C-alpha cells in the first residue's frame, strides 16, 4: 500500500478501517483502561523504588548492582506478564458475544465491513490498551540498564514474549466470544483456555510421565517429551528467560506455538463471524404431571434424579423466593454445565493427586494438592459469581426485582446461595478426589481437615468478593476484573508486599496466617511445623477470614441499600 493514500481513501476502500479506529479509540478512552494503566504504572514505580540500590549496595560494588538490576527486571517483567494475562481475556472474551447480546451484532453484519475486518477491529480493541501499557513499561524497565548486569537480549525476549502472549490470549478470547452464545460462558471458557495454553505442553509432558511410570519407563523418550513440553510452554520459557535467558531453540519453538494458536483462533473467529451460531432453541416441552410417566423416565436412560420436565412446586411461603429461584431454576438450568465442571475438576484434582503422590512426602504433597484446589476455585469463582447482579441489570430484570417486596437482604442471600451452588461441583470434586489419595496411603486427618477447611473458607470469601464486585459496577466484564483484583490483593498481594519490606514477616506464622488464606495452608501443612498448637491457630485464622468475607457481604448489602444501581 503506497504512503500516498489519504485517510479518506482508506475509509472508502476498507470499510473496516472506520470500525478499527472506533474500537481502538473507545477502548483507549474507557475508564477501565485508564485504571489499568495507572495501576500498572504505580506497581512498576513501587517495584523500582523498592529495588533501587541504596548506600549499602555501593559497597557491594558492581556485583551487587547487577543483582539489583536483575531483580528489578525479573519483578517488572513478571508483573507485566502476569498482569496482562489476567486482564486481556476479560477484554476480548466479551467482544463479539456482547454485540450479540445487545443485538447490535445484526447491524454490524448488515454493514459493509467484512468478517475479517470485524475480527481485526475487535482484536485491536482488546489489545490496544495492553500494547500501550507494554510500550510504556519499556522506559521504566530501561532504568535497569543504568545499573549494569542486565543483558539487553533478555529484555527484548521478555517484550517479544509478552506481546505475543497478549496477542494470543486476545485471539483465544475472540474465538470463544465468536463461538459461544453468552458472555459469561465465553469469559469462563476463555480463562480456562488461556490457562491451558500457558501450561498445556508442560501438563502434557507430566501426564506422559505419569502414564509412562505405570507402563514402561524409557528415560530417553521421557527426556524428549519433557524437553518439548518445557520448550513450548510459555510460562516455562518466560521463567527461563528471566532466570538466565532461554535457549534460542526454545524461544523460537515457543513463538511458533503462539503463532499456531493465534492462527487457529483467528480462523475460528473468522469462520464463526461469517456463520454465526443459531440462537438457542428453546423446546417448549410441556411439564409432566403424570406420576407414572415420571417414574418411567426416572427408571430409563438417562436416569433423571432431578427431572427437568417434572412440574415444579410453587414457592413455599416460609422460603426466600430469591434463593428458591436461584437454586430451583438458576442452578438447575445450568445443570449440565455444572455436571461437566464436576467431571473436569475431578479429573484435574485426581491427576494432581496422582502427580503429587509420585513425590510421596505426605504433608508436602497434601499441601500442594490442596493449594491447587484452592487456586483453581479462587480463579473460577469470579467467572461464576461476579456477574450475579450485573447480569440481572444487563437483562433488565433488576428494576422489576427492586419493585417487589423482596428485601435487599433476601436478594443478596439468594445470590450468595446461588454462588455457593455454582461452586459446589468444584467443591464436590475436591471431596471425591481424596479417595485415590487415601488408597495411596498419603491420607492424614489433620492435613485433610486443614485443607478442606481452608478450601471452604476461601470459597466463601471468594463468593463474597464476587458479589461485592457485581454491586460496585454495572458491567459484567468490569465486575470480573474488580473481583480478580481484590482476590489477588487478598490472596497474594498483602502478604507479598509485607514480605518484601520485611522478610521476617513470613517466617512468623502467627502473623502470616492473617495476611493471606493461602499462607495458612503453607504454615500449617509445612512438615516441620505441624503441631496441635498450629491447628488452634489455624482455627483462629479461619475465623478471621470468615469475618472478612462477612464484612464484604455486609458492605454489599449496604451498597444495595444505597441504591447504587439506580441510575442507568
Amino acid at each position: 500500500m503506497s504512503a500516498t493514500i489519504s485517510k479518506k481513501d482508506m475509509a472508502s476502500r476498507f470499510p473496516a478501517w472506520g470500525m478499527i479506529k472506533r474500537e481502538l479509540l473507545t477502548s483507549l478512552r474507557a475508564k477501565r483502561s485508564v485504571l489499568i494503566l495507572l495501576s500498572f504504572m504505580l506497581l512498576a514505580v513501587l517495584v523500582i523504588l523498592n529495588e533501587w540500590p541504596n548506600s549499602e549496595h555501593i559497597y557491594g560494588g558492581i556485583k551487587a548492582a547487577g543483582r539489583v538490576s536483575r531483580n528489578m527486571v525479573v519483578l517488572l517483567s513478571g508483573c507485566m506478564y502476569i498482569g496482562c494475562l489476567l486482564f486481556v481475556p476479560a477484554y476480548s472474551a466479551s467482544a463479539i458475544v456482547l454485540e450479540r447480546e445487545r443485538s447490535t451484532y445484526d447491524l454490524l453484519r448488515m454493514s459493509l465491513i467484512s468478517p475479517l475486518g470485524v475480527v481485526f477491529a475487535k482484536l485491536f480493541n482488546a489489545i490496544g490498551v495492553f500494547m500501550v501499557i507494554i510500550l510504556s513499561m519499556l522506559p521504566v524497565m530501561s532504568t535497569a540498564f543504568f545499573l549494569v548486569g542486565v543483558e539487553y537480549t533478555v529484555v527484548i525476549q521478555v517484550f517479544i514474549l509478552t506481546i505475543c502472549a497478549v496477542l494470543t490470549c486476545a485471539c483465544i478470547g475472540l474465538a470463544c466470544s465468536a463461538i459461544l452464545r453468552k458472555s459469561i460462558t465465553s469469559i469462563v471458557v476463555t480463562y480456562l483456555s488461556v490457562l491451558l495454553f500457558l501450561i498445556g505442553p508442560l501438563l502434557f509432558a507430566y501426564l506422559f510421565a505419569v502414564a509412562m511410570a505405570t507402563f514402561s519407563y524409557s528415560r530417553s523418550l521421557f527426556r524428549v517429551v519433557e524437553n518439548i513440553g518445557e520448550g513450548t510452554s510459555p510460562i516455562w520459557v518466560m521463567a527461563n528467560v528471566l532466570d538466565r535467558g532461554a535457549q534460542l531453540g526454545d524461544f523460537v519453538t515457543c513463538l511458533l506455538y503462539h503463532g499456531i494458536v493465534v492462527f487457529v483462533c483467528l480462523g475460528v473467529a473468522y469462520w464463526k463471524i461469517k456463520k454465526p451460531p443459531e440462537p438457542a432453541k428453546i423446546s417448549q416441552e410441556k411439564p409432566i404431571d403424570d406420576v407414572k410417566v415420571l417414574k418411567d423416565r426416572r427408571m430409563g436412560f438417562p436416569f433423571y434424579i432431578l427431572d427437568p420436565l417434572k412440574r415444579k412446586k410453587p414457592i413455599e411461603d416460609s422460603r426466600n423466593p430469591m434463593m428458591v429461584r436461584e437454586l430451583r431454576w438458576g442452578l438447575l438450568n445450568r445443570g449440565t454445565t455444572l455436571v461437566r465442571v464436576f467431571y473436569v475438576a475431578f479429573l484435574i484434582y485426581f491427576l494432581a493427586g496422582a502427580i503429587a503422590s509420585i513425590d510421596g512426602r505426605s504433608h508436602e504433597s497434601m499441601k500442594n494438592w490442596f493449594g491447587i484446589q484452592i487456586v483453581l476455585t479462587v480463579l473460577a469463582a469470579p467467572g461464576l459469581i461476579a456477574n450475579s447482579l450485573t447480569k440481572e441489570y444487563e437483562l433488565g430484570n433488576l428494576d422489576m426485582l427492586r419493585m417487589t417486596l423482596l428485601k435487599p437482604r433476601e436478594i443478596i442471600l439468594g445470590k450468595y446461595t446461588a454462588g455457593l451452588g455454582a461452586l459446589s461441583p468444584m467443591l464436590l470434586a475436591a471431596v471425591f478426589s481424596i479417595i485415590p489419595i487415601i488408597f495411596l496411603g498419603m491420607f492424614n486427618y489433620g492435613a485433610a481437615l486443614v485443607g478442606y477447611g481452608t478450601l471452604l473458607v476461601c470459597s466463601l470469601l471468594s463468593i463474597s468478593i464476587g458479589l461485592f464486585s457485581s454491586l460496585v459496577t454495572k458491567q459484567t466484564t468490569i465486575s470480573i476484573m474488580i473481583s480478580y483484583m481484590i482476590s489477588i490483593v487478598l490472596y497474594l498481594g498483602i502478604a507479598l508486599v509485607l514480605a518484601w519490606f520485611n522478610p521476617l514477616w513470613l517466617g512468623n506464622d502467627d502473623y502470616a496466617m492473617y495476611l493471606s488464606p493461602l499462607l495458612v495452608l503453607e504454615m500449617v501443612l509445612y512438615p516441620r511445623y505441624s503441631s496441635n498448637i498450629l491447628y488452634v491457630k489455624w482455627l483462629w485464622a479461619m475465623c478471621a477470614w470468615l469475618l472478612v468475607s462477612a464484612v464484604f457481604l455486609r458492605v454489599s448489602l449496604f451498597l444495595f441499600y444505597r441504591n447504587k444501581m439506580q441510575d442507568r
Partner: protein
Amino acid sequence: MAMIEIQHLTKHYGKFVALDDLNLEIEQGDIFGFIGPNGAGKTTTIRILSTLLEPASGQAHIDGIDVRKKPYEIKKILGYMPDDFGVYDGMRLREYLDFFGAAYKIPAKKRASIIDDVLQLTDLTSKADEFVSAFSRGMKQRSCLAKTLIHDPKVLLLDEPASGLDPRARIEMKELLKTLCEMGKTILISSHILSELGDMCNTIGIIEHGKLLAAGKVGDIMDKVREVRELRIEVLDKADETENLLKSIDGLLDIERNENVFNLQSNLDRAGIVALNTQLVQRGIPVLFLEEDQGSLEDVFLSVTKGGF
C-alpha cells in the same frame, strides 16, 4: 386528595436537567396518558414514582404516602411495568408469575388462583406452561403486564405497554385498562401512539424537556391549545344567504364554500360557536350539520411541543 401527587419534582443527570420543577396531580380512577417526545422525561418521572430513582428535589405522594420516605409501602400498592425488561431463562410463564407472586409475599395457597386470573385477563392461559424467554415481544409484554397485576395494585404505572402488541391485542389492552379502571384503579400510561391514548385516557399530560406543558381532561386541553377551530357547516338550502351571514360575523378567518358545504377557519370559542348556530337558526336557514373538525391528539401534541432536543 389526589391519588398521585407530584410537587416541584426535579432530577438532574450531571448538568443535564431531566425533570424541571414538575407538578402533576392524578385523581383516583383516572386513566392518565403521559405524552411527550423522546427524552422528555416520562420514564424518569415514572421511575421516581416507583421509588427506583431518587429525585434531586421535590416531592411525590401516592395515595398519600411519600415515595421517598416509605418506599416499601409504595411497592405494596404500585404496579410498575418498565419500558424495557428482561425475562428469566428457563422459567415457564406460570413459574415466572409464581416467583413474582412469592416476591410480593402472596401466600402460596392464594397464588395459584390469582395466577389463573391474571393469565385470563392478559389472554395468556394457553401459554402458561411455556418458557417465557422464547416468547415474542408482544407476548413478553403481556406476561410482564400479568406480572404487574399479580399483587392487585391500586396504582398502575405502565411505561409504553402497548408498543409491541398487535392490533387485536391493543384493542384488548384498551378493554383491559377500562376494566381495571372500573375496578377503581388509577392508571398512568405513557405512550407514543397518540390516537390510541386519545380514546383510552380520560386525562392527559404533555411533557417536554422535563416540564409539564399541559394537563387535564382531553377536551379541555384541546380547547386551551387550539386557537383556530375548523368548523364544517352544511345547509340544505339558502346557501348564498348563509355565505353572506357568515361573512358578516367576526371571528371567522377563512370561509371556503363548496356548494352547500362551508369549511370555516375560526377563532370562536365554544360560546361563540353556540351563538353562530343560534344566528343561523334565527334566520331560518335549514342547517343540516354544524360540526367541529375534532382534530386529534396529534395536532394538540404538535402545537404544544416544540420539538428539538
